């Protein structure tokens, strides 16, 4: 009795729910941007539907009830009876959020989330209400995760693919198997499947002789099929399918759709096997639908089917074929949407610990390979020897393995960003502003970012963006935009939250800081220094304390939580244009490309991504700035100069840097700085080994690494180094940045 199998299934249901909720949010976002088609709506519908189906199997009544009513409204949208207005869109988002709450409530056996009934009532108003518990019993029809019939949604839109595919050739294949075909053990179903695999197939089964049970010869062939194939297919492709049955099956292949005249007699003589879709006139045939969840009473065919004929045909193979064909067509139709196809790629769930172990091992492998390379180099083997070529191949393989492992380890930022989308919706609703969230990039992040990000997003909605009226007065669109982006830069993850609001009101910030005694009344502050005041504890600019923020626990909390992750946060703002917060985090465990340099006898690694260029100093480039500081002149710009040896305490600043080598580095905010080193040794990949746990944070140092000779080298964080250095060498600066 180690594990309860039901509990496991239940757990995997909730994991699937999370995935479905994610695709639901994705599709809703697409719809919100006006970038959607029927398939997008189907994704939304399917997600809600699958959650409902699974929940039904586990008897999660509250979840089923909510999902069902949500789904009912979505179904109206899907069928085109409901127009997608911005208000409806908001309700859909809100309902999706609540659905997530319901799932979590069901998982943790928590209380039913508040507000769901109100939301449902609002939703049902869209479709004129009353759709409520009408078809509750249908729930029992669903198999958990039963996706197969969901494709019925795709089939419903028969018209759409038809229009889209109108330029593709259409083939009509009439297949008349002889008795010999069955006698030889062939099976029409396989042929139909093979045809359906070629393109979009519509299959019509036609009974040749009226059913006369008395005269029935069980071995006689009474059925033939008419297949309409659409797709990039040649006649040869079709012929190939019938390669082995040519002599026992009559095949007529004609280009173009079979016309109605052809169809009508066939229909009149054929007792129909299944319902005819609404769109019959354009259809050259019809599929055999299983019952769809939304009961669509089949309209009678043009010429009524003979009532006496039983739905099941008399040939033994037929029912099986009929049922199976619809299953075959369904995937084929669904495959028309490549998006759908991509989502279906197989995945494996692996414990994160195992991957971390693998990542660690790969890190060791990289170090070992470097050691091996060094000893081979020291052995003085000729460069074209077998050992050297083998080593090169080894290095490439190591790099590939490492890249692949890192890709496995990467935690996409998407779920986190989606959570933020919800925060924006709730926050903007609370303060009555119109806000749109744009997200960019899909990178790895640290889970613990959620709290600081939530805070920053709320801040942006509450303080950053103006009210719609103010925006209109300033000539901006009333809808504010908050952008959330994730990028890899300088071996770090940079996450930016920016808004297009009014920017930081610097005089006001300054006044408040003075009023609160945070700065001296006569202090001369630069714009950047004023911006940084926001990070001081106990600072809040909001005139009124709103429900969202403005309680004085603001950006200082954000900053300390970012710093506890080993990250930095910076702020930039332009009046009238907006504010941008940028969080930069170290990649906790990774490999980076670095430039190995030597300074005062020590070996250091500078992340390659932060280096713009390297140069040799000449005395005319160096200009004195203050008594202890220099700048260098690089192509028309002055860049502050730092002696790495002196900054790290290895040596005293030199009198003359003539002939020294400088690394020109760039920070996240674009500021450049020049670092003096003694020599550049090589460029290589290094494994990042954290210092935080064994020693603690060292200013200017991001981490350590182990070189080929087994020695530890420090990996610099140029931005942090410069930030700390500038505080020391430029006199009475306000010590805010520390």
């Amino acid at each position: 009795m180690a594990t309860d199998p039901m509990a496991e299934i239940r757990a995997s249901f909730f994991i699937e729910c999370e995935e479905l909720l994610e695709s639901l949010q994705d599709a809703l976002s697409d719809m919100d941007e006006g970038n959607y088609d029927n398939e997008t709506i189907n994704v939304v519908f399917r997600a809600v539907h699958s959650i409902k189906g699974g929940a039904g199997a586990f008897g999660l009544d509250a979840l089923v009830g909510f999902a069902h009513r949500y789904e009912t409204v979505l179904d109206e949208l899907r069928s085109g009876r409901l127009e997608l207005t911005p208000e409806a869109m908001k309700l859909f988002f809100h309902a999706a959020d609540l659905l997530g709450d319901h799932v979590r409530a069901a998982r943790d056996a928590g209380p039913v989330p508040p507000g769901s009934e109100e939301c449902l009532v609002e939703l049902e108003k869209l479709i004129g209400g009353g759709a409520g518990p009408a078809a509750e019993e249908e729930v029992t029809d669903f198999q958990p995760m039963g996706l197969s019939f969901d494709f019925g949604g795709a089939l419903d839109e028969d018209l759409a693919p038809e229009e889209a595919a109108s330029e593709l050739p259409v083939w009509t294949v009439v297949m008349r198997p002889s008795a010999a075909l069955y006698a030889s053990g062939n099976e029409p179903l396989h042929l139909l499947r093979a045809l359906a695999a070629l393109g979009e197939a519509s299959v019509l089964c036609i009974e040749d002789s009226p059913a006369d049970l008395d005269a029935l010869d069980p071995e006689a062939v009474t059925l033939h099929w008419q297949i309409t194939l659409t797709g990039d297919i040649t006649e040869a492709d079709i012929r190939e399918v019938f390669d082995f049955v040519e002599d026992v099956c009559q095949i007529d292949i004609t280009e173009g759709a079979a016309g109605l005249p052809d169809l009508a007699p066939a229909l009149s003589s054929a007792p129909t096997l299944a319902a005819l879709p609404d769109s019959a006139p354009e259809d050259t045939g019809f599929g055999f639908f299983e019952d769809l969840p939304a009961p669509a009473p089949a309209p009678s065919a043009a010429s009524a089917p003979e009532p006496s004929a039983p739905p099941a045909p008399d040939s033994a193979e037929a029912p099986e074929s009929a049922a199976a064909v619809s299953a075959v067509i369904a995937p084929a139709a669904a495959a028309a949407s490549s998006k759908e196809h991509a989502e279906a790629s197989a995945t494996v769930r692996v414990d994160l610990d195992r991957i971390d172990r693998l990542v660690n091992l790969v890190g060791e492998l990289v170090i070992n390979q470097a050691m091996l390379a060094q000893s081979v180099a020291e052995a003085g083997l000729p460069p074209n020897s077998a050992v050297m070529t083998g080593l090169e191949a080894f290095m490439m393989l190591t790099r590939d393995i490492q890249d692949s492992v890192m890709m496995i380890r990467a935690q996409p930022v998407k779920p986190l960003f989606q959570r933020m989308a919800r925060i924006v919706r709730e926050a903007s609703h609370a303060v009555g502003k119109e806000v749109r969230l744009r997200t960019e990039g899909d990178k790895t992040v640290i889970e613990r970012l959620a709290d600081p990000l939530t805070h920053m997003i709320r801040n942006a909605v509450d303080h950053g963006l103006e009210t719609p009226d103010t925006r209109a007065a300033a000539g901006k669109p009333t809808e504010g935009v908050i952008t959330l982006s994730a990028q890899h830069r300088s071996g770090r993850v940079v996450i930016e939250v920016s808004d297009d609001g009014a920017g930081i009101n610097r005089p006001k910030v300054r006044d408040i800081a003075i009023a609160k005694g945070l700065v001296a009344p006569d202090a001369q502050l630069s714009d950047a220094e004023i911006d940084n005041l926001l990070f001081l504890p106990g600072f809040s600019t909001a005139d009124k304390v709103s429900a969202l923020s403005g309680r004085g626990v603001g950006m200082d909390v954000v900053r300390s939580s970012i710093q506890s992750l080993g990250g930095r946060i910076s702020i930039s703002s332009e009046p009238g244009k907006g504010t941008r917060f940028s969080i930069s985090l170290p990649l906790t465990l990774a490999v980076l490309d670095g430039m190995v340099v030597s300074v005062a006898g020590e070996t250091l690694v500078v992340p390659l991504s932060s280096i713009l260029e390297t140069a040799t100093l000449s005395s005319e480039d160096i200009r004195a700035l203050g008594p202890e500081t220099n700048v260098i002149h690089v192509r028309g710009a002055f860049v502050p100069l730092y002696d790495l040896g002196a900054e790290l305490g290895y040596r005293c600043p030199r009198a003359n840097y003539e002939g020294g080598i400088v690394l020109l580095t760039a920070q996240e905010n674009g500021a450049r700085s020049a670092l003096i080193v003694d020599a550049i040794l090589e460029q290589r990949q290094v494994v990042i080994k954290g210092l935080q746990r064994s020693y603690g944070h060292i200013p200017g140092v991001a981490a350590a690494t182990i070189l080929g000779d087994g020695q530890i080298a420090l990996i610099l964080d140029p931005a942090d180094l410069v930030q700390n250095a500038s505080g020391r060498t430029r006199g009475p600066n306000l010590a805010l940045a520390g």
Partner: protein
Amino acid sequence: MADHSSNTSELELLSFRLAEEEYSVDIMSVREIRGWTRATPLPHAPAYVRGVINLRGTVLPVVDLSVRLGMAPVEGDARNVIIVVQVGSQTAGLLVDAVSDILALPRNELQAPPELAADTAHSFIEALTIVDGRMIRVLDLGAVLPDEASEAA
């Protein structure tokens, strides 16, 4: 009860030399003993932090015990050793002149250090004992390790 067991239980100490003086640590906190390797110095680190070394793929901070106790730095040559100790979740290396002995003695032979003048080394010494006429100092590892480490310990 607690007193009784602590009085009779045996204690094993690893003793080592620092500038002709004998010190020791509880052998249960010693992970391994390594030969001298050059440590990579850390910027902005206190003087007693000699730097970091590579201990089979992990970064290990090394404390120059001699400096920590207010004496001249250990020179750092092939005769010196690094004692790798673990206190709580923290691991660190102690650079000493040489390891001398392993001593087993009952706990009740340990004496608390007398309250003496404000000597740097004083606060790092947990107990004293006499073995074969030599005075052995037992170090308080938690106090010796760098701040971050002792906080975590």
